């Protein structure tokens, strides 16, 4: 993974096609490692962790994944300036490669390639490194969903099964799509041909010694504690499964109880939510009712809180010390705007939820 970093820093253009020979986790440039990586598990399983100088999130790399890494100088007329246009143009290479392999795929902006069934089969990232633009993606021959979901830090172990299951449903790879997966060498040739059809012919060359030297130095740097644990501004409130599909594991602690929310978000709306509450809640069917009535709600604090308020009011529910906006906070993870104070209804015994007009 550090060869393309080295090429970019040295201003050497080219296309690298490579298959990793070991599993490792790769953080996106802005990922907060402590929030997303289960370091205890990785240490126990000898899974190294590195940080790349590209965007995107945490990924598991390893054998069975063929990476294409394009390095092209800024100012090259073949490079579109708007980032979205560069993605669209260079994504044609893997798109055509998949089709030649017999897998019907389409491009989902900005950086996903999906099967006809809507499963993500390839993800891509890009960066400006020194004076070069770098475009990186992969052809997945196989992928270990279980290992990846196990490597990630989750707010609650109950969420991990949900994570693995959702990934399994929404991702794909060649072994799932084809009776027989071609050899890595054939796939590498295919992807090289398709990039050449976009950019012009490539000339195969040995990498100069200084590229390898710099790549080795970068490997040390990008796996160092200083870089792995560097401070970033990212808040990890959700896990992106594919473009438009997210998973969230939210926990909200109050003095009176704990709320755990497993949320599946699809195109900006709640697809499914499972709630677990430590607080005493009445009536007992409320949890299931809440979950069902949140389906389709726009995934923002205000919309979720409003729906919760309406449901809890209509069900005459009592939730000791748990207010709709506390549930909303567990579900959404952040408040988008001010939400007024909710007062308990003094006519019901014990603390309760607000009646209309509160």
């Amino acid at each position, binding site marked *: 993974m550090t060869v393309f970093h080295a090429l970019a820093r040295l201003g050497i253009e080219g296309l690298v096609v490579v298959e990793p020979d070991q599993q490792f986790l790769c953080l996106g*440039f802005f990922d907060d490692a402590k929030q997303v990586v289960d370091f205890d598990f990785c240490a126990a399983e000898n899974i190294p962790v590195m940080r790349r100088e590209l965007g995107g999130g945490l990924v598991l790399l390893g054998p069975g994944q063929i990476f294409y890494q394009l390095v092209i100088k800024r100012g090259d007329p073949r490079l*579109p*300036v708007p980032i979205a246009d560069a993605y669209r143009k260079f994504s044609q290479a893997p798109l055509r490669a998949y089709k030649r392999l017999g897998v019907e795929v389409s491009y989902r902006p900005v950086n996903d390639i999906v099967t006809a069934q809507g499963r993500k089969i390839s993800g891509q990232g*890009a960066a400006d490194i020194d004076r070069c633009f770098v475009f990186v993606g992969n052809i997945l021959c196989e992928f270990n969903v279980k290992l990846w979901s196990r490597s990630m830090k989750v707010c609650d172990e109950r969420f991990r099964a949900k994570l693995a299951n959702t990934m399994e449903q929404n991702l794909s790879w060649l072994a799932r799509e084809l009776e027989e997966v071609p050899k890595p060498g054939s796939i590498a040739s295919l992807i090289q041909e398709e990039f050449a059809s976009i950019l012009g012919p490539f000339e195969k060359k040995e990498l100069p010694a200084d590229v390898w030297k710099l790549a080795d130095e970068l490997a040390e740097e990008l796996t160092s504690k200083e870089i792995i644990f560097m*401070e970033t501004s990212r808040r990890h409130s959700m896990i992106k499964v594919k473009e438009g599909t997210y998973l969230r594991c939210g926990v909200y602690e109050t003095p009176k109880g704990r709320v755990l929310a497993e949320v599946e978000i699809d195109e900006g709306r709640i697809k499914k939510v499972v709630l677990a509450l430590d607080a005493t809640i009445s009536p007992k069917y409320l949890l299931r009712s809440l979950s069902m009535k949140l389906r389709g709600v726009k995934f923002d604090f205000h919309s979720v809180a409003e729906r919760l308020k309406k449901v809890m009011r209509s069900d005459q529910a009592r939730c000791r010390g748990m207010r709709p906006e506390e549930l909303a906070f567990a579900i959404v993870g952040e408040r988008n705007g001010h939400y007024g104070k909710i007062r308990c209804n003094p006519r019901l015994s014990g603390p309760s939820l607000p009646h209309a007009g509160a």
Partner: protein
Amino acid sequence: MAQVNGCQFPDGLLYAIVEAKNVFVWANENSDETFTIGMVSVAAAFAGTLVSYTPKKTGRVIARFQSVAVVESSKWVGPVPTPLTGELVESNDELRKTPSLASSEPYGRGWIAKIKPSNLQAERESLLSAEQAANLMKGFIDRKNIVCPNP
């Protein structure tokens, strides 16, 4: 205000435009001898809406055209260069919380950093006025079919 294809170049700011080095930034002199710097709207347009912003540590001296911050949009990561050599004295906390400001308000709340220049006399001469920057960018904007969204 100069404008090309909706891409604005407000008067009163100074600009560093060096296409070969991917430098498209502005600078505004403050009353305390520092300069506020940011991305011109063209750069914000072709990067797309920003989702992350990480400035370099304050106190560092950064050479002209080297990175003062790294930004991300749609899984692309790139540097924002400084138009002036100097010490990074302040980063934008509001931008950290709302990175999209660099796209929606590149000349206002979406500023990138504040620099205390250490080589101003030599480097100031190479900075451009709004009109000069717009004229220089016109060919680039037309060639690359860039259109900036309405502010």
